[in-house]
């Protein structure tokens, strides 16, 4: 509760600070606000408080809140030199990002469909806007419009699903829904099933799982890189938390029903994400497809629900978030220098910018799932998760896809280290260095001793 309030208040303060043209104060304010929120997260640890019957700040919620807040914090650090050059409405951007974060906090801690819905929409509406803040940029426009149209469309399905579930159970409360399923395990109302499926569709859209992923590459590519970073990391994490909260919680009794379509979705997602990423020439777009494929791996946690599912998602999402932040941070730097985000612009990066290249290498290794990085632990947990029910074929399929993944992740590494290119020297601001090093440190620490976050939830 305190977390949301802190974030919201920070957002208001930032908005007003913007009104008074205190642009220099924005970032410190935000950082302080987020750190406070993070502090509240820590304080609430283990509390499992329920607020107004609407929000449950259990460890699951807090852990994901923590990841989201830290992720957002790092992204804020990347705003240095990013917005300033473009516009004078920085305060509004900050505010919107903070609003989105507040929405996400709701999404990870909801106890009622209404909270899920409102949180989801706060986040989505903020993102529609953020995707389009480059008003003169055609790509940004296009991304914004596409995202908006498809997002609104999918919201319809989500709502229809909520409605049907409400119709069957007579409540929006997760506990009541669960109680309904437990009590009527043999006579679940038939309208409940389409409700579940439609909700699944709506949530799959938000996390970019196939075949509802189509917006992802276009929007990620078109949106400003920083926003893409935000969308592909923090937002995605929150989406998964929401997904998990619902499906691994109240809807778990119907697991047998929805697991089949989910497996199909997972396979499609893995396949489309990985295979399409292979042929991309644009690093950013590749990352978009890669994010689709990671959605596939993340969904493994729902295919077999164990008591660790939540934690597995947390580890994976954290690994993915920090690796992606590195990737996008470097991308922003490269794009600022070369004006392009194709793979070619990374050529020869390692020669003049060994630190940046090394960080990006670690990130790519983590995304690819190489041991001793967090990404491996994440993948390992996911595989372990589904292997507990011996879904070996699925794992085999995932392995094949992971192999494809190596190809495209290593393309960047290859470009940086093994190809000759214009020897551009990136100007790396101190904050970027901080972000890169922190993320790399987290990635490696989680990879080498993941024990520290294995038992959070």
């Amino acid at each position, binding site marked *: 509760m305190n977390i949301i309030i802190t974030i919201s208040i920070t957002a208001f303060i930032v908005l007003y600070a913007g009104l008074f043209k205190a642009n220099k104060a924005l970032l410190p304010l935000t950082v302080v606000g987020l750190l406070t929120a993070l502090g509240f997260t820590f304080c609430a640890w283990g509390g499992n408080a329920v607020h107004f019957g609407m929000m449950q700040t259990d460890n699951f919620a807090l852990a994901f809140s923590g990841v989201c807040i830290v992720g957002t914090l790092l992204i804020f650090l990347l705003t240095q030199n990013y917005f300033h050059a473009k516009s004078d409405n920085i305060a509004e951007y900050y505010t919107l990002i903070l609003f989105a974060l507040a929405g996400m906090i709701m999404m990870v801690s909801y106890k009622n469909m209404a909270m899920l819905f*409102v949180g989801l929409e706060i986040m989505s*509406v903020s993102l529609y806007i953020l995707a389009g803040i480059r008003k003169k940029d055609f790509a940004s426009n296009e991304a914004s419009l596409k995202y908006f*149209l498809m997002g609104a469309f999918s919201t319809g399905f989500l709502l*229809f699903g909520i*409605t049907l579930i*409400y119709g069957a159970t007579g*409540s929006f409360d997760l506990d009541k829904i669960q109680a309904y399923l437990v009590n009527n395990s043999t006579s679940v109302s038939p309208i409940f099933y389409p409700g579940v499926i439609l909700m699944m569709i709506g949530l799959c859209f938000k996390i970019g799982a196939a075949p509802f992923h189509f917006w992802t590459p276009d929007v990620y590519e078109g949106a400003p890189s920083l926003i893409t970073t935000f969308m592909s990391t923090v937002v995605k994490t929150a989406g998964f938390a929401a997904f998990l909260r619902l499906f691994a919680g109240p809807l778990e009794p119907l697991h047998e029903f929805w697991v089949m379509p989910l497996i199909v979705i997972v396979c499609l997602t893995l396949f489309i994400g990985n295979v399409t990423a292979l042929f991309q020439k644009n690093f950013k777009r590749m990352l978009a497809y890669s994010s689709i494929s990671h959605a596939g791996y993340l969904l493994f946690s729902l295919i077999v629900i164990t008591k660790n599912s939540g934690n597995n998602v947390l580890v994976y999402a954290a690994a993915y978030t920090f690796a992606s932040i590195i990737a996008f941070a470097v991308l922003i730097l490269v794009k600022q220098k070369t004006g392009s985000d194709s793979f070619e612009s990374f050529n020869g990066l390692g020669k003049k910018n060994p630190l940046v290249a090394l960080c990006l290498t670690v990130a790519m290794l983590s995304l690819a799932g190489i041991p001793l990085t967090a990404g491996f632990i994440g993948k390992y947990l996911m595989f372990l998760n589904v292997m507990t029910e011996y879904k070996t074929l699925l794992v085999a399929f995932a392995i094949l896809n992971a192999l494809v993944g190596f190809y495209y992740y290593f393309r960047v590494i290859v470009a940086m280290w093994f190809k000759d290119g214009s020897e551009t020297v990136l100007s790396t601001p101190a904050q970027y260095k901080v972000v890169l090093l922190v993320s790399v440190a987290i990635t490696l620490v989680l990879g080498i001793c993941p024990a520290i976050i294995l038992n959070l939830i």
Partner: protein
Amino acid sequence: MENLTTQMAGVPLNHYIYLSAIIFTIGVIGVLTRRNAIVIFMSVELMLNAVNLLLTAFSVHSNDPSGQVFVFFIMALAAAEVAVGLAIIVMVYRNTKSIDINVLNRLKW
């Protein structure tokens, strides 16, 4: 009014569901077949309204006001979305002089 509604007792809940489903689908068809962003957007509104209607019906059926409360949230969303959506559409129109969604396909592959 009360008189009227008590007489409504005859309509089975199913029919509300059908009605909503039909309207919802009409919205979907609209989204699929039109190219004008605003019309598509309107179709989405149609879908949302179908949901609203169904929620209300369920709410009445289970004698639970929370369904109708939820409709408020949907309306709030609809308002917010309209504001943002139309702003986006206007912004796009400024740049492209068109609101045909097919014009927007520079981002692909």
